[in-house]
């Protein structure tokens, strides 16, 4: 069954609940990039981000009835699940360490010029070294472009908390970027 591209997440979820595979596929394709990026920014590891993304949508398959549209968007619900999975992983094996000094090639292949690479590397490192609460706020509000309200729903905290966390996180980022020297790898800049 073909699904209209403008179908709402709620409508698609209802169809997916009834066993409509196409609806689920569209729902996945619509939401997975943001979830994957969130996980990637939070853990700095593409394999873990992949696992978390898969776990989030597995949880959606099994517990889709837990989603209440009156309490927020499906995106917020999925970010909430992703956050829980990331925390569980953090507690379990402490693999969610701050980002490494060098990044995976696959993540920077598309950054062609040295200045952009340098910028991306510095900012990514700075974001990765933020405390977890601050990091997820920066990722949701500044990198994923969520509003304070959407981020508050995803993080299950008041809007005021999101604002204050973002304020402190940005201050920390400015400090880190000011003091941090650029990380430029010879291979990446073609030297």
């Amino acid at each position, binding site marked *: 069954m073909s699904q209209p591209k403008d179908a709402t997440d709620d409508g698609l979820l209802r169809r*997916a609940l009834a*066993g409509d*595979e196409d609806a*689920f*596929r569209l729902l*996945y*394709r619509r939401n*997975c*990039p943001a979830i*994957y*990026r969130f996980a*990637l*920014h939070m853990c700095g590891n593409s394999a873990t*981000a*992949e696992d978390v*993304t*898969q776990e989030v*949508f*597995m949880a959606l*398959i*099994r517990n889709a009835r837990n989603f209440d549209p009156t309490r927020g968007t499906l995106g917020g619900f999925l970010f909430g699940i992703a956050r829980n999975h990331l925390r569980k992983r953090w507690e379990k094996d402490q693999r969610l360490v701050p980002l490494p000094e060098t990044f995976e090639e696959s*993540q*920077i292949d*598309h*950054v062609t010029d040295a200045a*952009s690479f340098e*910028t*991306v590397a*510095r*900012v*990514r490192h700075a*974001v990765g070294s933020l405390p977890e609460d601050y990091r997820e706020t*920066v990722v949701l509000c*500044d*990198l*994923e*472009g969520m509003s*304070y309200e959407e981020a508050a729903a995803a993080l299950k905290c008041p809007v005021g908390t999101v*604002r204050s966390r*973002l*304020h402190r996180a*940005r201050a920390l*980022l*400015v400090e880190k*970027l*000011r003091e941090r020297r650029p990380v430029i790898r010879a291979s990446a800049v073609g030297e």
Partner: protein
Amino acid sequence: MNCEMFEKILCDLDRADVLPSAVREAALAHAETCAPCGLLMTESESLDMHLRTLSISARIQSPPPRVESALLEEFREFHEEQRRGRRRWQLAALGVAAAAALAVSYFLLGHFVPGRNPMKDAQDTSTHSGAPTTAPIASTARDSNESAHAQEASGTNTPKRLAPVANPSAGQETAAEQGTAFIPLPYADSAAEIEGGEVVRVILSPAALEAMGLRSSDFSSSGDVSADLLVDEAGTPEAIRLVAQSDKDSVPN
């Protein structure tokens, strides 16, 4: 607008619809006149630019296709399992409903068969072709022995009452019939001495009754009468019990 307030709203300056336009303009005006706040604003704008670069660089990031394949596989399995579960429940519910329907039908058929008269059925059974029906009464006779001994001991001379036998078709009163107690026949031995024997359902004419020492004038009916005969092992009738069946026969006096 002062520096403290400017610092508070700094991260909202770049966001649409967060600050009222008047506050935003006041903040920008303050940044132009205050050097430290101007520097903060420049750093904030620079950070925004860096974050935007990072965001754009990450835009094309997405999980590999194998994740989607695995999820779709899981989706199919989950819904197939759900369907199987639903089918199992439906079958179970159907089974329970069928069992309940059978139980109700059985109950209703047992009690309310249209056109069936349980009274008449009993009557038909007891008068069927006049053929005698028999039932062993050994235990009845033994019970009677005890009763007879008790009566002898007490010196009373009341007719000996024999308990009905357990056979529903002979010797035992059904809902449609009424009977007297067993009355020893004049020539019979004491009922207390009877060991074994049978109760036989018979239809007797008035003449036959008189032959047994009973007067036909004792019965309101002038025709044949149903009776149970207590017959000993030798086949000799020892006692008789008169049975009246519903309205057809008269009740013994």
